[in-house]
């Protein structure tokens, strides 16, 4: 039963091998709908898994499976995101990563429940549930930002964008906040919940019992997923908002209306607020965890979280005040503007900027075993080359290597069956006769009524 629930809700939540529908669906939906889909809809799958793991007898091995799937899925999901060129597909793959993180945290909580590790189990469960909220907030913020970009320029291809901060400063600022949050960097909210999960793994690793060994690879994989998320989003923010515009559409972009900017501002404020008052959020999460596992009650906010909360506020204030003071001081000193120095390559065309494809190149090379980037290349030939071409496409490995072949196989098998149905009445009468004969034989042999 539990496995079936995991499969069903897992399809909905879209964790790694079951995510095949997610990137395409989230990328094609209108952006505000993508925001709700990513922020809320896939969390219904997570909710289902949480509820069912509370009700159903959890088979042994389920917790380790969930941790493994979640951790590996987080790394693979984000690595696939890293090689995307479509902004919204990147965001969708990042959802796969975050659901992986959540799943790994939940698996850890189940593991703790079965091995009696109340202290770290609470941390893991609270971290996972908190990450559900955090992911909803910053992913909605990012999707709204991506939607503004799409609206302003008409393209989601990062290689055609660039330099949008000039025309869309507020969207760029909101997207930057989302980027910091999604990369799990202090002092924003994605970091707090990831830190809780890290801490749970650290405490689990110190206990040396049974299947807790799974905490060791999980922690490393979580770190790799975090570093990949940082890489993926510096690529997204860098190619879309920074640098110089790569196309006319990007050059003539316009800022979004007040409604969009207001929504982004509210989400960004929540990203900061949830992060800077972790002690206010903890009781809520602890209440939910207590409901999920009635044994884990009491023992207020962990001391470490209180300390971290102080750090969060301190760092936030320091960055804001220090950044403001630094900016003011630099402003008064003044500066000169010049072309990008770049070791003397003055004024290349803007299309010579590092593109999103090249940015993901190293990760793509590391991923070649899973998803070879498909290339169509026609090199320039001769003294006066007439044309050249370079097309790159990143396939979705699970969909195109696993699901589609199975689908094609099924379709082939069905085609063979379909030859029986050809519309010739005489043959249908023969089928009926043969069927009747077989029934008669069956009744005869079985002794019949």
């Amino acid at each position: 039963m539990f496995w079936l629930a995991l499969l069903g809700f897992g399809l909905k939540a879209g964790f790694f091998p079951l995510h095949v529908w997610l990137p395409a669906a989230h990328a094609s939906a209108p952006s505000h709908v993508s925001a709700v889909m990513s922020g809320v809809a896939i969390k219904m799958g997570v909710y289902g898994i949480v509820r069912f793991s509370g009700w159903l007898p959890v088979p042994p091995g389920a917790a380790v499976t969930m941790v493994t799937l979640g951790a590996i899925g987080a790394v693979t999901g984000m690595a696939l995101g890293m090689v995307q060129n479509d902004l919204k597909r990147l965001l969708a793959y990042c959802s796969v990563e975050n659901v992986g993180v959540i799943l790994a945290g939940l698996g850890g909580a189940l593991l703790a429940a079965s091995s009696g590790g109340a202290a770290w189990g609470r941390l893991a469960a609270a971290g996972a549930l908190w990450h559900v909220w955090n992911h909803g907030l910053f992913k909605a913020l990012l999707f709204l930002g991506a939607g503004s970009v799409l609206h302003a320029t008409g393209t989601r291809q990062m290689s055609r964008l660039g330099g949008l901060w000039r025309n869309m400063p507020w969207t760029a600022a909101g997207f930057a906040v989302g980027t910091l949050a999604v990369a799990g960097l202090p002092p924003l909210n994605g970091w707090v919940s990831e830190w809780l999960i890290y801490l749970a793994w650290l405490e689990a690793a110190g206990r040396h019992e049974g299947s807790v060994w799974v905490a060791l690879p999980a922690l490393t994989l979580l770190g790799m997923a975090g570093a990949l998320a940082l890489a993926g989003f510096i690529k997204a923010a860098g190619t879309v908002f920074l640098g110089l515009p790569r196309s006319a559409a990007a050059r003539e972009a316009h800022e979004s209306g007040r409604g969009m900017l207001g929504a982004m501002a509210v989400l960004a404020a929540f990203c900061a607020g949830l992060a800077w008052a972790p002690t206010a959020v903890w009781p809520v999460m602890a209440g939910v965890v207590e409901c999920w596992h009635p044994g884990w009650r009491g023992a207020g906010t962990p001391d470490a979280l209180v300390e971290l909360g102080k750090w969060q506020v301190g760092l936030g204030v320091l960055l804001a005040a220090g950044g403001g003071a630094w900016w003011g001081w630099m402003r008064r000193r003044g500066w000169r503007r010049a072309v990008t120095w770049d070791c003397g390559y003055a004024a290349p065309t803007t299309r010579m900027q590092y593109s999103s494809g090249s940015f993901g190149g190293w990760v793509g090379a590391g991923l070649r075993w899973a998803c070879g980037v498909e290339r169509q290349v026609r090199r320039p030939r001769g003294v006066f080359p007439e044309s050249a071409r370079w097309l790159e496409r990143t396939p979705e490995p699970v969909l195109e290597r696993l699901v589609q072949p199975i689908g094609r196989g099924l379709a082939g098998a069905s085609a063979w069956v379909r030859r029986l149905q050809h519309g010739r009445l005489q043959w249908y009468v023969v089928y009926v006769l043969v069927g009747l004969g077989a029934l008669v034989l069956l009744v005869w042999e079985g002794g019949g009524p």
Partner: protein
Amino acid sequence: METLARLAFWLVVAPLLPGLINRVKARLAGRKGPPVWQLYSDLARLWRKGVVLSRAASPGFVLAPAVAWVAVVGAAWLMPLGPAGGPVHFAGDVILVVYLLALARFATAWSAMETGSSFEGMGAAREVSFAVLGEAALLTGLLALSVRSGQTHLEGMLAGSAGAGAVLLGAALFVVLLAENSRVPFDDPNTHLELTMIHEVMVLDHSGPLLAAVLHGAAVKLLLFAVLLVEAVLPLGEWSPGAAAAGLAAGVLAVTVGVGLVESLMARLAFRRVPLLLTTAFLLSVFALLVAWRGGVS
């Protein structure tokens, strides 16, 4: 007061390290070399200089070096310093250190993307991609320390005895130190115009106080990794305060000279090999972790 003393230690001592490395390199090459305090005068000079910004750069370009500097100094401040211990310690502060360094990496890569130059974009891409392996090696190494000591905060993790995995862990952390601080087998801090650079290339368009912040932050980061390496390998917590302080100083000096030696005796690695070397560091960390894990059971 203690906070100020700690900050002063990190901020003032850090620029010595690059100077020492350069001195070692110069001696081995038979040159006299720049004075050890060269970086201090460089920083003072840069601080007075004017700033030239790229036309492509947004206000983020001015803010990013400050953010990176604050993040690195914050991470350094959290580190325990031998006999003095840590300024605060709470469970999981070790993850905060790792992520503050990640924040610094984010800010540097951000300002590299600001300039719209393909060269600097390339540096940013390499930096963040290699960091995936580097972070795995670093976290696994820290996890080994945590498993061995049974503690989840830096002060407890770094105080204890080195244990059997110390050599493995030390080697792994040394490779991570070289990678994170763009030293030789990964990157050559001497070159500015070669296409095989990771970190240096990201700051090509910084000038004046912006460059000073970047350079000083890099020095603090080098000192941070050196202190981490020494404290992870030597059981400073079991020594008397004087011996621990001396051990820490000697260890940091030894690491610095070691970096200088590596830099003089080795060529930079072929670029395709870099992930391989980082994976080696990761595997060393994994073995150190296994040693710690088995050691805890018996």
